[in-house]
């Protein structure tokens, strides 16, 4: 796959190094030649480009026309928005990923700015901390399809109505599916006959509008 990464800070360089190791062709753009030069190009698959990713010409030179993915990961949210919009509007890049630096800006990182996936570190950290401390509540780990669906996690409390029941016996709503159960550090591949225990971590893929029904089935009414 051809991937363009705009922003050669520690995030962009790390992404370029990792993704190139997996065999992808990377173009790394930054205004600073020094930042681009610092990337470790062991695989020889990273092409550095000094220029402003917010300019159409730079993106054209980077080959945005046939790129599969563009990742706008500069430390500046305004730049990330401009890069994303240009990628979608001028080059029709199929997958646009953008980094949110300031969580207050997250509301803008959506399809209106050409963004398919936004990644906000503060948001992610909050979700992970919530996941670590919350037993018996539904935590959204990941949004998919522009937030229409999501991966949810619940650690079953002792008094959960799901404890002792097989998955087929749970009144799970349509448009939701149990994708994995994590028990004592092992991944249990769920079948309809898998019986849930207290302290199981249950991962459920579901659309947003069935979350309250999911809560009823796995947590119960409080």
């Amino acid at each position: 796959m051809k991937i363009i990464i705009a922003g050669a800070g520690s995030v962009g360089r790390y992404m370029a190094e990792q993704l190139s190791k997996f065999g992808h062709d990377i173009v790394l753009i930054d205004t600073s030649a020094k930042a681009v030069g610092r990337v470790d190009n062991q695989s020889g698959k990273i092409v550095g480009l000094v220029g402003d990713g917010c300019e159409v010409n730079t993106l054209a030179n980077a080959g945005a026309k046939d790129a599969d993915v563009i990742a706008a990961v500069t430390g500046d949210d305004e730049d990330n928005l401009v890069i994303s919009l240009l990628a979608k509007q001028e080059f029709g890049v199929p997958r646009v990923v953008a980094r949110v630096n300031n969580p207050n800006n997250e509301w803008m990182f959506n399809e209106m700015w050409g963004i398919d996936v936004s990644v906000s570190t503060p948001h992610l950290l909050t979700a992970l901390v919530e996941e670590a401390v919350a037993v018996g509540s539904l935590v959204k780990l990941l949004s998919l399809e522009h937030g229409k669906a999501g991966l949810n996690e619940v650690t079953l409390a002792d008094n959960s109505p799901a404890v002792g029941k097989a998955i087929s016996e749970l009144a799970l709503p349509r448009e939701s599916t149990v994708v994995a159960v994590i028990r004592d550090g092992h991944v249990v591949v769920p079948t309809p006959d898998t019986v849930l225990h207290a302290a199981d971590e249950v991962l459920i893929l579901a659309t947003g509008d069935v979350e309250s029904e999911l809560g009823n089935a796995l947590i119960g009414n409080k």
Partner: protein
Amino acid sequence: MFGRKKSASAPEVQSVDGVSISEAPRRERTTIVGKVIRMQSKPAQGLPTMVVSIGDDTGTCIATWTGRRTIGAITLGRRIAITGVGTDASGILTFVNPEYQLLV
């Protein structure tokens, strides 16, 4: 008063060269000529977006303009030409913020 009245209305042209919608390439700068067959103003997570379906004899495509609810001159049945880079969004040719030209 200053002879501006005429130029204030959008310039209209008779014809523009375009490709038919069914043959339009993806991810290349393209011009499409067609009629507005549907208009929709939808708030994308609270932000306005104008979604317009444009059809010719061969098919339909979608143009979206972000950050606005309406474009005064674009009305149902209007013939327009749009120029932009089209992509496939759920199988439908879609243009984001294309340039547009009003046709007679």
